């Protein structure tokens, strides 16, 4: 995985912000691509060991692998985080990830695989291009993922569960009775409703990307993404 981008100075950020404001959407996209090493790889301008390619995705060997055969599955389109990706592409990416996992089990003598996505720096994301990691696993391979177990109080389970149900939208609630969750602020109403996958028109798709941009700005993915996601 490549290292994080260099920190930008206050001045550079301001200058960049000004520059970005003047850009058309097409120029903005071009700018993003130029900044992104993975877009350069997909364009063939930077060398890589390609394992798989189709019209939507591009799979390469990680040069800093967790294990031999570790594949980075990239979307050809530049997305910073998963929430920006249209539903049909999500489906495609993970069907390919499953196939890659299958290829590893058959082809390189491993007994397991991990599929990992990190959204945001706090989650361990280092690149500004959406990446799905498919990692071959063997017993005692030195890869040591730590997922602690934190027990939750019953009241906390209810509160968090209901917040999630509410954010997922009424249409997709389980049918069982559930306690109404009273929003703490009226801001709750601003949470965009989830669209059914089949009802995603072009306009809505654009909106979704904008929403994701807002999220992006909140999670401070990196300096450039922050600027792009800002007002």
């Amino acid at each position, binding site marked *: 995985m490549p290292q994080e981008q260099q920190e930008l100075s206050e001045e550079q950020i301001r200058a960049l912000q000004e520059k970005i404001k003047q850009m058309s959407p097409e120029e903005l996209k071009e700018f993003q691509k130029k900044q992104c090493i993975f877009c350069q790889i997909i364009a063939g301008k930077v060398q890589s060991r390609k394992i798989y390619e189709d019209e939507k995705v591009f799979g390469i060997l990680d040069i800093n692998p967790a294990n031999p055969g570790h594949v980075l599955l990239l979307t050809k389109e530049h997305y910073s985080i998963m929430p920006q990706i249209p539903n049909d592409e*999500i489906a495609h990416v993970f069907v390919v990830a499953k196939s890659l996992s299958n290829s590893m089990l058959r082809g390189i003598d491993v007994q397991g695989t991990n599929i*990992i*996505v990190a959204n945001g720096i706090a989650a361990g994301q280092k690149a500004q291009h959406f990446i799905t990691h498919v990692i071959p696993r063997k017993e005692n391979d030195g890869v040591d993922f730590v997922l*602690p177990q934190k027990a939750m109080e019953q009241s906390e389970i209810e509160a968090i569960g209901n*917040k999630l149900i509410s954010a997922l939208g009424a249409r997709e609630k389980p049918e069982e009775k559930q306690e109404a969750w009273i929003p703490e602020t009226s801001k709750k109403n601003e949470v965009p409703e989830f669209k059914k996958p089949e009802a995603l028109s072009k306009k809505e798709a654009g909106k979704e990307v904008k929403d994701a941009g807002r999220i992006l700005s909140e999670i401070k993915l990196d300096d450039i993404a922050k600027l792009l996601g800002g007002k």
Partner: protein
Amino acid sequence: MTPKSSERCVVCQIIESRIPSKKIYEDELAMAVLDVNGANPGHCFIMPKNHYPIIEQVPDDEIGRLFQISNKISVAIFESLGAQGTNIFVANGIPAGQTVAHFTINVIPRKENDGINLQWKPKQLSEEEMSTVELKLKDETKNIGIEPEKKAKKTLKTLEPQPVALSEEEETYFAKQMRRLP
């Protein structure tokens, strides 16, 4: 083999409400519940209603659907729990950390210094080692038959669960490692 349900599977028992859980999403094919012993509060797992021990047995249209749901839940975690990040995490096979013989996707809310570690120490491979693994994988991936447009449509429209079409030999091969699971 029938993928429908397994008497002894904990996840199947959750799906059939024989074990209580906090459900946050359900449709014809899938269910998502809160992990009450999660890595962080809000940790969810998403599972197909059909009993598939490992990912290779899950049909493509269900894979697509399950990860679309995972993405929605990840967005809901950002929006309603104020998470700074999310991880999507899948473990296939015991060496990868799979503990239940029913395919599940974990969606984990993240905050700085939350005690979770999904990082790795990069292994140094020689050029030759890289080339060898590259060739072996390429040899397998050339058989991947994905038709993007068709698959995408199918994912949205097909709701009927479809049994896996693995040959007996393949089934044994993939299921063998899962036998040791409780």
